[in-house]
């Protein structure tokens, strides 16, 4: 039997790892899939290719399918999130000039940092983000909105150019996915101040997306894809596999990044500034544990609300996060599935055991920096 070819789009960032591992370690082949990873130059291009049917599936920023379902994401199309590929994994960094102006702030102190930045006199801060419909941008807006006096200007910068944009003074700060935060530190252009998880402890970052009609017409291929990616994500989160994962990703033609650039994100040991000791960040980039892959409908609702959705839009957004397909397709391979498909986002301050099909699910904290909770039921 020849393997089924499946074209899957991705953007070469460290958190595309589950797709690369699914291919390189043969998880896709085990499912009878010839996973053809198609590198995309920009998120807009990836979105168009998926919507127009040139890609079967793609790695997407978690707000993208939701924005599209609300009709604000550039191209109107019904795109679903089949599963979450990664949780967290982004960093907020500032230029050397801004770092000097705001003085010492403990790494990861979102409240303290915001107070210092808000007190900073001068023109509105220009903050670089990779894409408007990105979790980075939503977290940035959520965080800065709590300081009403602070005005910011959002500037879209492709991640590989973020370090140069800071160096040339085009942006004062940035919110970006790895390795591009660490790159800006290594080139001596920026200091990292906190990670995305300091604003929201458990933020769905990248998702595996497909057109709704494609998953309906290709339910078997979709199931095999989800299983392969699930196993890859599971493998990636094994502590003993991390060194090998870094090695494989570093050699992979799909990423074209050296191992030392992949290491900080995968190990969670970030160096905030040149010459500073690394900081160990808990769950800096979570691929699998704590039901990281589960597409919670409440996560979709939170994203929709941040994008300004009304009740109807929020309801539609929930339907984009296909926890139904996740249950259906991964039940057979021993995945532990949560009893509910929604949770009160922000309510978990500690690791918490919850009801699940196999009875040993522990959810990680999902609190917001300001303590707010979001109940969408």
């Amino acid at each position, binding site marked *: 039997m020849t393997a089924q070819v499946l074209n899957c789009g991705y953007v070469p960032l460290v958190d595309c790892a589950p797709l690369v591992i699914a291919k390189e370690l043969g998880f896709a082949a085990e499912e009878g899939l010839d996973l053809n990873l198609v590198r995309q*130059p*920009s998120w807009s*291009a990836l979105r168009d290719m998926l919507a127009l049917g*040139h890609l079967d599936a793609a790695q997407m920023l978690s707000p993208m399918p939701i924005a599209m379902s609300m009709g604000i994401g550039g191209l109107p*199309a019904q795109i679903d999130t089949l599963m979450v590929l990664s949780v967290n994994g982004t960093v907020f960094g500032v230029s050397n000039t801004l770092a000097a102006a705001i003085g010492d702030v403990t790494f990861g102190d979102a409240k303290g940092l915001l107070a210092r930045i808000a007190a900073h006199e001068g023109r509105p801060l220009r903050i*670089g983000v*990779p894409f408007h419909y990105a979790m980075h941008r939503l977290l940035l807006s959520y965080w800065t909105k709590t300081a009403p006096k602070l005005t910011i200007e959002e*500037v879209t*910068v492709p991640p590989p*150019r973020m370090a140069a944009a800071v160096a040339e003074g085009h942006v004062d700060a940035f919110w970006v996915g790895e390795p591009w935060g660490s790159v800006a530190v290594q080139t001596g252009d920026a200091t990292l101040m906190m990670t995305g998880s300091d604003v929201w402890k458990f933020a769905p970052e990248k998702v595996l997306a497909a057109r709704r009609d494609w998953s309906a017409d290709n339910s078997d291929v979709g199931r095999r894809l989800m299983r392969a990616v699930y196993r890859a994500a599971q493998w990636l989160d094994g502590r003993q596999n991390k060194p090998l994962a870094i090695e494989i990703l570093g050699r992979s033609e799909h990423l074209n990044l050296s191992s030392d650039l992949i290491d900080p994100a995968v190990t969670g040991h970030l160096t905030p500034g040149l010459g500073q000791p690394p900081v160990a960040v808990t769950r800096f980039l979570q691929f699998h544990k704590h039901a990281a892959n589960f597409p919670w409908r409440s996560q979709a609702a939170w994203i929709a609300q941040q994008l300004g959705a009304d009740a109807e839009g929020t309801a539609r957004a929930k339907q984009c996060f296909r926890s139904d397909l996740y249950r259906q397709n991964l039940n057979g391979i021993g995945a532990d599935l949560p009893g509910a498909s929604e949770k009160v986002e922000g309510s978990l301050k500690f690791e918490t055991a919850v009801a699940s099909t196999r009875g040993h699910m522990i959810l990680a904290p999902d609190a917001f920096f300001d303590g707010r909770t979001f109940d969408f039921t």
Partner: protein
Amino acid sequence: MDLPKIDYDDSSMSENLRILVVEADPSRVRDIVDALNDAGWTDVMALAQISALDRTVKEFAPDIVLIDLANPDRDTLEQITVATETDKRAVALFVDRTDDTLTQAALNAGVSAYVVDGLTMNRIKPVLETAIARFKVIRQMQSELDAAKQALEDRKTIDRAKGFLMRQRGLSEDEAYGLMRKTAMDQGRKVIDVATALVTAADLLS
């Protein structure tokens, strides 16, 4: 959606369009700018990259942006154009070499124009003109749709204002509308403005 027949002789096409070329390769930039000039377009700006140059792009206010599909700056461009009013928004032309069905599909989806098969310099004028003409048709339909939606919203507001007057003043529907129309004419305003003011006041008083 079938595209209506396009009149390629549209005289507005020969207007001097402002064209922004985003291309990192200097020799290719030269070729493109030369070809555009030969085609009669002289208001051309070329940038090697536009990330963090959002202000430059906004100030130049291009009618058309020519950018390779493989260029990562496309996300920046999209953010800049989304922040611009619809009727002043630049037409982005994405140069791509994938296949021909893509242009049609993208245009039918109503977002952007893909110029496929690369951009050969001797074909630059017809390729650009075709893409612009198609995009104009799409934009025209979009603004008609927006106008229809607005008319429907206005209708609802006027009906609410009428209802309010009928209840408060004991008027018939025609009398209520007549009163709003007279007030609008006396004050040199539009009926919808009077109705909106009335609805706002009614909301405040209720």
